[in-house]
């Protein structure tokens, strides 16, 4: 089979995997804390895209019964249900991380991981 066709066929899965890795790359390489949080969000959407793509069906319809439907082909409703939960969870984690960023900025005066490490090394623990 033609490789291009394969790619087009699996484009959602490939996209999901790529977004997961791009997000992970952002988290690993960037030192800015807010960038790291965005990276986590991108990772999350990558996984969600992968999940939703599993449920998709060529020529299917969204799983909602309407009047006058006869033997419709529905897409898989389970991934949608799971991802609804997943999105809300990822928002909660994001907000908690953001609140920590605010506090880190107020107490240390920086949101850069490298500078943070330097400041923390200079300060002798005083308790």
């Amino acid at each position, binding site marked *: 089979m033609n490789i291009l066709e394969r790619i087009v066929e699996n484009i*959602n899965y490939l996209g999901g995997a790529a977004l997961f890795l791009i997000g992970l*790359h952002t988290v690993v390489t*960037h030192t800015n804390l*807010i960038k790291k949080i965005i990276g986590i969000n991108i990772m999350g959407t990558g996984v969600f895209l992968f999940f*939703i793509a599993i449920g998709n069906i060529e020529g299917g319809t969204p799983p909602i019964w309407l009047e006058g439907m006869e033997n419709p082909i529905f897409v898989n409703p389970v991934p949608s249900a799971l*991802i609804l939960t997943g999105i809300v969870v990822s928002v909660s984690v*994001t907000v908690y991380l953001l609140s920590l960023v605010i506090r880190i900025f107020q107490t240390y005066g920086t949101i850069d991981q490298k500078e943070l490490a330097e400041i923390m090394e200079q300060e002798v623990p005083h308790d």
Partner: protein
Amino acid sequence: MQLFNVLLVVFLVVCAIAVERTKDLLSAIIIFSAYSLMMSLLWLILKAPDVALTEAAIGAGVTSLLFFAVISKTKRYEK
């Protein structure tokens, strides 16, 4: 429809890379907001309207507002 799907995924990947490379956090978040909106469009194409609605309201709306709120209290530029 298949072509549109491919274009959307490519757009998403480009957006994600752009977010990573932008030094200005404000622009990065605006791009991320657009990314979320495109993601919800993609989910509409994949026949998951419930998820698309939620993502449009939460991912593109609330999350970016929260990011803006935090940026207004911290720094705008990445070193």
